[in-house]
């Protein structure tokens, strides 16, 4: 059930009506939890067992934290076992085949014989997202950032809440659980802001991402057949596609949650206007990058133990962040490229920026162009199915040489330029906020007209969100 489907609108209308009809906080949470399990079960009811298992583990770790004092060994053991359990489930379902194949191939290189053992498992939708949320709960409880929830329903609701369940944003326990403790009040709901955000997200996902996806698909399915200009256009279009797909989903998730009275953190902030890679990671998938920072980079030591250790921690975080997206060396390379850029930037900042005067706006434009160039080089590895395919596209992207003669329709370059201009404009003029500031009746008519316009630009055909696979 996708946010852009009619059945989701019907589902959401029913849940929305029911929740606001109920008065008690507990009954609302029960309804929302049941609706969330229904929402998840529509994909495949067998996945419900997994999310329940992860919820039980999280609840038990919370119970242990509530029972033992902060420094107690039992508490640490419970946390360790809980995280190991959650990651174990993630590992089996997402990474077993990858590591088994890698081990067998490595053994083969060493002259040893190791048979390929693979499990025929379906990757459960959104497992990476709710596993990280579960870890967030266990760690936050362990750190006493929040009190452990005695109610299993509360933990289940936090992990399964349907707007963020399958593709984020990754909501921190410390941010969300306090919101669960009091009944949401309709008077506090920013209806117009939430509807406007949903509409903006719908437009990004359905009207932009889904329309350019076919151009990206043909380039990445047979890059050798296309001219260098078309391959570069395909790579740039993929950058637009994944941004509009994922940020559009996040906008819709935040809008849905907002209409139910809950606030999620923003997940994107005009990432392609970043002046450098560090800035990019403050603007792209913010809920993941801040999660990795707080639950991985800083626990690894962060930048507290010298530059060498900082670089190692950075690279470890980025490579694991890449691997979080999928079990493939392409994702490892994607993370490595970002880690490498972060290390180079920090060295550059220390060696050059402290000694040379700043270049002003020219420096900012140059920095942004370089960042966009590097980010899209990394996207090649993120999108391509195999390493040889990635290298073939990367070679064209870097050298601007190709023997292919196929071309994409002429519209793609004006499209790229236009969408780039829209990205800049949207950063300055917050369209959603402007829309939400209209008087109620004007807002209703404006959104009605915009919804009709958006519907006309929805391509017909099924195309799921890219981030569901992660």
């Amino acid at each position, binding site marked *: 059930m996708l946010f852009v489907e009619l059945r989701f609108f019907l589902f959401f209308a029913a849940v929305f009506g029911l929740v606001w009809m109920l008065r008690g906080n507990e009954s609302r949470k029960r309804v929302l939890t049941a609706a969330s399990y229904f929402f998840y079960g529509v994909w495949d009811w067998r996945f419900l067992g997994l999310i329940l298992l992860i919820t039980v583990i999280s609840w038990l770790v919370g119970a242990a934290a509530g029972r033992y004092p902060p420094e107690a060994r039992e508490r640490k053991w419970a946390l360790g076992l809980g995280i190991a359990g959650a990651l174990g489930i993630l590992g089996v379902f997402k990474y077993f085949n990858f590591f088994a194949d890698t081990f067998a191939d490595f053994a083969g290189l060493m002259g040893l014989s190791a048979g390929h053992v693979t499990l025929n498992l379906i990757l459960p939708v959104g497992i990476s997202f709710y596993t990280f949320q579960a870890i967030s709960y266990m760690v936050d409880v362990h750190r006493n950032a929040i009190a452990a929830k005695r109610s299993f329903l509360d933990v289940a609701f936090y992990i399964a809440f349907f707007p963020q369940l399958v593709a984020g944003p990754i909501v921190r326990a410390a941010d969300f659980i306090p919101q669960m403790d009091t009944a949401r009040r309709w008077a506090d709901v920013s209806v117009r802001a939430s509807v406007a955000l949903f509409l903006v997200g719908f437009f990004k996902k359905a009207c932009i991402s889904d*329309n350019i996806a076919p151009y990206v*698909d043909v380039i990445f399915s047979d890059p050798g057949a296309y001219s260098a200009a078309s391959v570069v256009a395909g790579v740039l279009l993929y950058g637009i596609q994944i941004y509009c797909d994922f940020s559009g989903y996040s906008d819709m998730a935040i809008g849905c949650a907002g209409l139910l009275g809950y606030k999620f953190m923003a997940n994107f902030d005009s990432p392609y206007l970043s002046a450098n890679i560090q800035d990019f990671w403050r603007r792209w998938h913010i809920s993941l990058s801040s999660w990795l920072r707080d639950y991985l980079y800083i626990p690894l030591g962060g930048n507290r133990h010298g530059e060498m250790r900082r670089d190692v921690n950075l690279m470890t975080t980025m490579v694991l962040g890449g691997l979080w997206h999928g079990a493939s060396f392409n994702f490892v390379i994607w993370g490595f490229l970002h880690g490498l850029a972060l290390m180079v930037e920090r060295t550059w900042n220390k060696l050059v920026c402290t000694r040379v005067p700043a270049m002003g706006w020219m420096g900012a434009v140059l920095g942004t162009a370089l960042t966009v160039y590097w980010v899209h080089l990394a996207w090649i590895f993120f999108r391509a199915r195999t390493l040889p395919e990635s290298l073939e596209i990367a070679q064209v992207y870097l050298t601007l040489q190709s023997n292919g003669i196929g071309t994409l*329709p002429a519209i793609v370059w004006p499209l790229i330029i236009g969408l780039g201009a829209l990205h800049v404009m949207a950063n300055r003029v917050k369209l959603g906020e402007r829309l939400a500031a209209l008087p109620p009746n004007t*807002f209703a*008519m404006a959104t009605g*007209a915009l919804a*009709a316009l958006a519907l006309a630009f*929805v391509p*017909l055909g099924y195309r799921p969100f890219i981030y569901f696979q992660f």
Partner: protein
Amino acid sequence: MASLSRFLPAALFAGTFTICAALLSQGLRAATPMPHMTVLSDKLAFWRENAANYDTLFIGTSRTFYHIDPVTVAASAAAEGCPDVRAFNFGVYGLNGAELDWLVDEVLSAPGGDLRTVVLEDPLPQAHTMADTTNTRSRWFHAPAYWRGALGNIASYPESLPKRIFRTGIFVYGAGFDLSGAGLGAALAFPPAYTWTSTADYLDMDGYEPLGTIQTDNIRARRAEFLANPDGFTAAMARYGAPSDEAVTARADYLVERLRAIEARGIEATFYVSPELIELDRTPRIGAAVAEIAPDMSVLNYNQPDLYPDLFKRDQWHDFSHLLPAGAERLSARVGADLCRSLKRTDGGMTDAVR
């Protein structure tokens, strides 16, 4: 009053959305060229280029597309004494009433035509699934300009009232879907990533495709169902001549109106009823009703096992609606001969058709 005003924004949203969607859909439709439709577009483009090469045109559904081989028709007609028959098969699978009306206008207005005879098959009733209602072709023919034809098709088709209501509901869904404008802007603004080159081999065979030449999931499924259900053949044959309370007069009127419109252009119009097992209780009666209403008109009514037993042997059937190529050849030979007899009678001032 105050409580009602709470719903004003929602009403304004719905009203604005509906009006804007309808206006947008009409504006975008006007700016949108007709999309490519498999078989239909290819045959129409071919016809516009080659109309002068043919004097006989078969227009109908998949039972024309897969059943009428123009080469065999011409050879059989020649053997019967009509050496100059040059036929083209304009069968399009799933052709319904609104599509047929439009298609007849299009082919008859093609330049350079030397058309002498049009053989028309009864079109299908409106689609009966939601998926079939929202595909590119169906959507195009759910625009307001085609509503009259579609509703006339549903209203005249000899079916029970609940079935007609159901088909009307599906039609309303299709019309609403088209009026919503969904996807029209996207199709207009974003050209396909690559140009699809169709392999229309049937154009080399004057529009005929032996069933099974191109396998689709639907064709495979129909075949598998037929093979797995031998009793179904016997049951279908038993429906021939069985009493039915479905009135066919309205359908006959509907068809005669279309046949007369062709004749008004100075072209001989012939009504063709294909062998079809699942329609044995319906289409033979429609053919008879047309012959009764328009006794001067040629009616080639082959869905009659007692008259054409050679066409109703189980091993000649691909599925419950279509003949295998061998059966199609046998049918085409009979069509050619009957068509020639009909032409001779017409030329001689007699229009006593095969009935």
